[in-house]
């Protein structure tokens, strides 16, 4: 069981976390805009998450916290 939290309003929607996830848990919320005007990343399939923190490792904006 792992928990990934996004500081969504700081996300720039670059998608590097989405590409890094080995379990394809993450996605970009194309239908949403955050405070900065970007479509942010979000956890789509939490149940598949293994807490590897690859997403956070590749996030250029330090907006991801991972708990396990």
């Amino acid at each position, binding site marked *: 069981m792992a928990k990934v939290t996004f500081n969504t309003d700081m996300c720039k929607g670059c998608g590097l976390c989405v590409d890094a996830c080995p379990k394809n848990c993450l996605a970009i919320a194309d239908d949403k805009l955050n405070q900065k005007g970007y479509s942010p990343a979000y956890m789509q399939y939490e149940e598949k998450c293994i807490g590897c923190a690859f997403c956070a490792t590749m*996030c250029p*904006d330090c907006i991801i916290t*991972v708990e396990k």
Partner: protein
Amino acid sequence: MAVVFEKPKSLTDAPFHYCPGCPHGIIHRLVAEVIDELGIEGKAIGVAPVGCAVMAYDYFTCDMIEAPHGRAPAVATGIKRCRPDNVVFTYQGDGDLASIGMAETVHSAARNENITVIFVNNAIYGMTGGQMAPTSLPGQVTQTSPYGRDVKHCGWPIRVSEMLATLEGPEYVARVAVNNVKNVKNAKKAIKRAFENQIEGKGFSLVEVVSACPTNWGMTPKAALEWVESDMLPYYPIGVYKDRSAGEGK
């Protein structure tokens, strides 16, 4: 549940001004993680460059100074010679370190100045809008090489790590990349080593980080990291080019 990954303490709350997908943020974080792990936040003094990372002084919680273009190693030398017990690092891009500041780079390395240099090589001038850098690849299209870098006209890109490794002076010179998880983890190890060397008084340690510039390369962040693998790394191979303590050099 325990936290296994969070923003390091040595970064301020200021949001990075970098473009979406710019690996500067990753490299800043790696430096901050190393500062946290070595417990040197209170002793560290950082030197920011001119270029995209000019406002690095807003992002690190340690004391910071902003140097003139290319002069960061000289500024760092001045600080370190005054305060040898502090941990002094520079954070510089390819235009700053390998073009206008090449003399400062080479001579601080030759003196084995006991500082840590983080050199971000993304083969382009980012801040000014995508001009040719001393590390732009042959044929690379930039604003000032619109037909591709013609090496007959403007010369060849400089492999800084290989060049510095020919000097007697420096303690440690390594090239890493931040284009995937494995490389990011290895990059952190090299950065940590470069700081440890300074703490142990071993001398000049430079980590060249091969990075990307999605905006000025005209690519998506994902495609830019793929281009690092396919085009940058063949010209700029990852590796340890000088490691005096380990008796290594390529």
